């Protein structure tokens, strides 16, 4: 495909956010993306648009404006209640052709990461996954996208100068949630689902919510996390006890501990696990390989407990406790109990 000329590029305006909707509820990541979209739109002197696809969402659109959207495109249809990648991709492609956005960003969730690559191929757009930073090139107005690569050992800056729109996904909890402006309002545009060839369409048989067994690292205020230094499943039992005593704390783990089979994958934090951004992160016996650090280094307060004071984790910690986790943690538990 030919590269876009400057003139063709000028036809593309505005920053779009594709909303993340789960079972009829708008997810926080959408508001986080609105924050960064607002910043970009202000730089470009353009607007923030949100594309919302789902069912029965009309009552829920107000919050988009409060978090910074100027326009909401609503595609509301019962068929969109479940996630049909093909249908949503076709619909977004149509909207892109019609409205020509300059930038499209989407949460790097299981749905976003299935949907947007499909759209990018269909529209011959450049797409950058899991961006941790977005900015505008002051010289030519291109979107500069920064992301970790090679397990977080490298930060790469990527641009897509000759194609429009420029697309990026961003993981939940990477961007700061903006403060809502409750008086703010905007425009609503209603659009239809684009069906095309319905014979070949995916059928959703059933949807299960499994939040009980899901380890809710995301919503915890405090994460107590263990690595190789916890030496085995018993070490993690100690951490679970610690977490119970602290109250409201979740247990996390490094990849080493998960690979060793000491705790399930759902607890894994890092590049190949979850990214967390809690108030407090207590790393117990985690050396702090870069893959792990990228998943937790934006936590507000990092505490490390380790015998070796020279590990990467002990270096980046706000508080580094030097000593044996198997001696110190039982002491902490004891102290909290006797309070």
């Amino acid at each position, binding site marked *: 495909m030919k590269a876009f000329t400057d003139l063709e590029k000028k036809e593309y305006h505005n920053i779009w956010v594709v909303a993340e909707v789960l079972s009829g509820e708008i997810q926080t990541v959408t508001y986080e993306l609105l924050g960064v979209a607002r910043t970009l739109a202000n730089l470009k002197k353009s607007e923030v648009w949100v594309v919302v696809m789902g069912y029965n969402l009309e009552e829920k659109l107000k919050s988009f404006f409060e978090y910074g959207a100027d326009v909401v495109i609503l595609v509301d249809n019962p068929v969109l209640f479940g996630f049909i990648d093909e249908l949503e991709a076709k619909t977004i492609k149509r909207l892109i052709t019609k409205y020509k956005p300059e930038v499209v960003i989407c949460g790097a969730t299981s749905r976003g990461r*299935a949907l947007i690559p499909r759209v990018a191929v269909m529209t011959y757009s450049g797409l950058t996954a899991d961006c941790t930073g977005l900015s505008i090139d002051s010289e030519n107005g291109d979107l500069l996208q920064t992301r970790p690569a090679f*397990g977080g050992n490298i*930060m790469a800056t990527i641009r897509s100068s000759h194609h429009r729109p420029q697309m990026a996904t961003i993981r939940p909890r990477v961007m700061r949630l903006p403060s809502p402006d409750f008086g703010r309002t905007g425009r609503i545009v209603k659009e239809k689902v684009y069906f095309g060839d319905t014979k070949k369409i995916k059928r959703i048989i059933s949807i299960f919510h499994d939040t009980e067994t899901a380890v809710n690292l995301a919503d915890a205020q405090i994460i107590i996390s263990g690595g190789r230094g916890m030496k085995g499943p018993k070490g993690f039992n100690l951490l679970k006890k610690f977490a119970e005593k602290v109250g409201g704390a979740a247990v996390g783990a490094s990849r080493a501990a998960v690979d060793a089979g000491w705790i399930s994958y759902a607890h894994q934090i890092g590049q190949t696990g979850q990214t967390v951004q809690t108030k407090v992160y207590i790393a117990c016996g985690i050396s702090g390989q870069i893959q792990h650090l990228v998943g937790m280094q934006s936590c507000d307060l990092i505490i490390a407990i380790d015998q070796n004071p020279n590990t990467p984790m002990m270096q980046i910690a706000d508080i*580094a406790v030097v000593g044996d986790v198997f001696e110190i943690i039982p002491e902490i538990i004891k102290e909290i109990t006797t309070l």
Partner: protein
Amino acid sequence: MKIVICLKQVPATNDTKIDPETKRIIREGVKAILNPFDTYAVEEAIQLRDKFGGEVIALSMGPPKAEEILKEALALGVDRAILLSDRAFGGSDTWATSYALAKAIKKISDVDLVICGKQAIDGDTAQVGPGIAAHLGWSQATYVMAIEEVSSFFIRVKRMHEDGYDICEMPFPVVITVVKDINIPRVPTLKGRLASLKKEIPIWKPKDIKVDKSKIGLDGSPTRVVKIEPPKPRHINTKKIEGSAPECARSLLRELRLRNII
């Protein structure tokens, strides 16, 4: 059933470093491995073939050295392997990569199912699987944690989401990407490895798969990497706590109370 698995050779990430002078990725001496997530694709394909019959073809795009991972796939039990390798493919981003792979899948012909790992550990993009599906115009299912049912017309899979999972059904042909919950990958046996040494792996060039040359390699890629650098270190003043275990515990709790955490 005719199954294609798309595999990638990746550096073992623990070793990846940036040269502080040239700002380039140091590749010398870095071990190259089969992308760990792809091992689940290999295993699932072999299990499906053993259950339903048919053929498993391993496909990779990369330098000639990427033959190693295809040999590994052969050692594990896939029927044959094909390597897309040519300078013209170099510098492909996920758009151009999924385009070339889709073209190769077309050339293989009559494919029912394409299986990819959920993502590669070097790029971590998870974009190539859905990209292939889009180029082929096929249905897709990502983050598949189980294949529930296979009939002559459709496949029914369980997809993992943040808030649970769903079960969906698609008519063939289909592209799926799989997560580690789907199976436990086997390791190659000595017998399999020795047999794989004798197998030939054909190398396909752009002309073999009839690609539009403007859509492959760096020129066909909409994205450009303009800068790479080491991650910024977190800027902090570490407060060190030392002493006996009870002392450490008490000092730490004092710090937590000062910050209203406990």
